[in-house]
């Protein structure tokens, strides 16, 4: 029982990270109908920028907790801004010129941008994994049992609490942004009918750019969280995380932000429980198989609307 609880907490934490990336995928797919292949690599870039910022500030675990939190907020802001610059450039260079053209062209372009980002970080920073000792330690013991083999403690670490709280806060913020502001209205109208939206005076280019920026900010947050939680990053984490996060977005219903978060949680739980109870090596196979299962039996996702195909 305790083991289950511990894996549950791990799964929710991992799922929050996937959910944050998935929101970026789902927003971009909703508005321009295209998978941003490079989004997973934006997550990776966000993680790297966080690492560099932490090193540049000179943050170590010995600082006081309040100082750590403040500094991490600063690092978060830097990562969000810089990752947004990346995604904005990707959109301007690779997607906007190909809007409205032949469908395979943006896909190839997106794959090309993903390769460029990976190689850029690999060449500039080196291909080796970058480890860092944990900054935030400590936590809360939830369950403390003593069995014949020894003690078993289910611990909710501070980092996990931070991740879950940040994710919930960001999700609430972005949902409010989408549903209550004029920017959100503009986005929703572009999703429904871009031509009509532009006829009604909405600046479609700007709305799309802002969508990309928002997605990138969330991916940067996910990158920082990932780095703080797991302590080691390399240039290849974007690819796998990207595919899994896209699976999460599809699972939750593409175009729906709560769906993306829900899908992320489900993906995180599946991955953690599969590695805990079955086998660690095949956890990726489980995630990918989940993708296939979802798309065959539930193509509109959990929270999406079934798409009626017009002939």
């Amino acid at each position, binding site marked *: 029982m305790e083991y289950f609880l511990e894996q549950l907490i791990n799964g929710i934490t991992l799922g929050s990270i996937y959910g944050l990336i998935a929101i970026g995928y789902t927003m971009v*797919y909703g508005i321009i109908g295209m998978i941003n292949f490079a989004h997973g690599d934006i997550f990776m870039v966000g993680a*790297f920028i966080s690492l560099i910022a932490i090193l540049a500030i000179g943050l170590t675990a010995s600082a006081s907790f309040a100082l750590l939190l403040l500094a991490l907020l600063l690092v978060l802001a830097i990562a969000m801004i810089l990752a947004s610059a990346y995604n904005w450039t990707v959109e301007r260079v690779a997607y906007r010129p190909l809007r409205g053209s032949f469908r*395979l062209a943006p*896909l190839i372009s997106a794959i090309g941008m993903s390769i460029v980002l990976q190689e850029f970080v690999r060449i500039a920073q080196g291909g080796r994994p970058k480890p860092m000792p944990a900054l935030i330690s400590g936590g809360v013991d939830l369950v403390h049992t003593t069995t014949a083999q020894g003690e078993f403690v289910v611990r909710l670490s501070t980092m996990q609490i931070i991740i879950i709280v940040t994710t919930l806060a960001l999700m609430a913020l972005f949902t409010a942004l989408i549903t209550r502001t004029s920017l959100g209205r503009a986005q929703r109208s572009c999703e429904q009918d871009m031509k009509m939206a532009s006829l009604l005076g909405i600046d479609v280019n700007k709305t799309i750019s802002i969508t990309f920026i928002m997605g990138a900010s969330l991916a940067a947050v996910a990158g920082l969280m990932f780095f703080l939680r797991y302590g080691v990053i390399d240039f290849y984490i974007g690819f796998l995380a990207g595919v899994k996060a896209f699976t999460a977005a599809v699972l939750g219903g593409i175009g729906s932000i709560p769906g993306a978060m829900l899908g992320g949680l489900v993906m995180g739980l599946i991955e953690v429980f599969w590695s805990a109870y079955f086998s660690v*090596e095949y956890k990726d196979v489980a995630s990918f198989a989940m993708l296939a299962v979802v798309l065959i039996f539930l193509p509109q996702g959990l929270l999406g609307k079934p798409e009626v195909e017009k002939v």
Partner: protein
Amino acid sequence: MTASSSAHSGTDFNRILIDVALTALIAFAILGPIVGLKTEAPQGGLVLQQRWGWVASFVAIIAAGRLALHLLVWNRPSWVTPQHVKRWGWSAMAVGVAAFVIGLITTDSPLGFLAQIHAQLPAWFVAFGVFAFLAGAWLAYSAASETVEGKAAQSGFVQAVEPYGKYFGVALLVIGVLLPFIPGVDRRIVDLGILMLTYVMLGWGLNIVVGLAGLLDLGYVAFYAVGAYSYALLATIYFPLWFGDGITPWSFWLVLPLAGLLAGLWGIILGFPVLRLRGDYLAIVTLAFGEIIRVILINWYDFTNGPNGISDIPRPSFFGIPFTNDENGFAATFGLSYSPIQRIIFLYYVILVLALITNFVTMRLRRLPIGRAWEALREDEIACRSLGINTTNTKLTAFAIGAMFGGFAGSFFATRQGFVSPESFVFMESAIILAIVVLGGLGSQIGVVIAAIVVIGAFELFRELAFLKAIMPDGFDPAQYRMLAVGIAMVLIMRWRPRGLVTKRDPSIFLKEKKAVSADLVAQGHG
């Protein structure tokens, strides 16, 4: 962004400056942290190494380039006409050629007056020459496209070359057949030829799935892997187990059809779950399936030997006669003196024949009902279904036949290398093969050949760029930048030629006369 010929050139210039400043700012945001602050671990802990010089040079180059683009292409001052730009483009090209030649002839020769000034100067001349030539060519081309005479000249050129287009394929075939015997061609070039032909065959196989049937497949490398591993396992373990060791010289020819069959089977297995998927969803699921194969190959240690791979794979024999240096070897049997290149030339012809078989089968299938069903599926799946075509069978056949050819190519790869490991079957391979197919033009056979030659040739060319090595600081290895160049090339080529290099397609069936249609009329397929 149009060329504005406004009378308020003062405000225009302000706008240009603001735009360039913003570009520089964004370039700094992107390049600053990742390039400028490199994380290094000299003694285990991470420290930052500052490289602001690089950042400054890159940002300066980007800002200068943007300014030049503004002034020469987008917002030209009113006194600059397209003729001016064209002339500057041509002169830049001339200067580039001159610098290139000067740099080359002074590098290691008695005329090394440049090298006496500074050891690196000839290399700088060569690099500058290449850059000036490319920039000038682009300027001249874009300026020429703007004027009516320029466009007429371009289309005139295209029309003059077109009737010889069909001889181009024949010419390539002749060169391909004769390649090992052209004087001056050494083992490296034949090896390069084998590599190119392998990718041509993979491209033709993927062309069936993506180009003819319109199914976006990002996991083609899985079939390649299945073919390679089936050959490796059957030839090293199972065939000697079942038939004794005498089977080894024949193993390639016996296992080849089996490998194709197994790959085709996997193609059908892959095809079933994705029958209802379209477009990007199909792409992602096929990508996921490709990754599943790779993960299984790495982790199923008992069966596939995991990350260590399978080595000592038997090489092909000349129909039973091995390529060894003894009396029953190939050289002794045919009265030639032994040379290792004989086996390489044989491998070259094997892959050439395999590729030509792929092409032949594809061309014939295009005329059969199944091929026409594929192309109908690509154009409009719903119309297909309403005409009574069984789309399930059509899609599965496309996957199976495309996979089969991928399996053949995989077997060849295993026997040529003598060693397979899961590292060779990553997603990047699928991306490169897809890039070759799209770059060549969907559905165009000759386009795939041209694209494979260009892509693989450029890839290998990166190893040869000695002049870049000379001008950059120590430790610069151009081969490291190959994938980056591939990625950049993919993005740029999609902007320039989204439909691929070959822009004409021959229809499969026609009413009265066979007229080639433009590639824009060919649908891209939604899966």
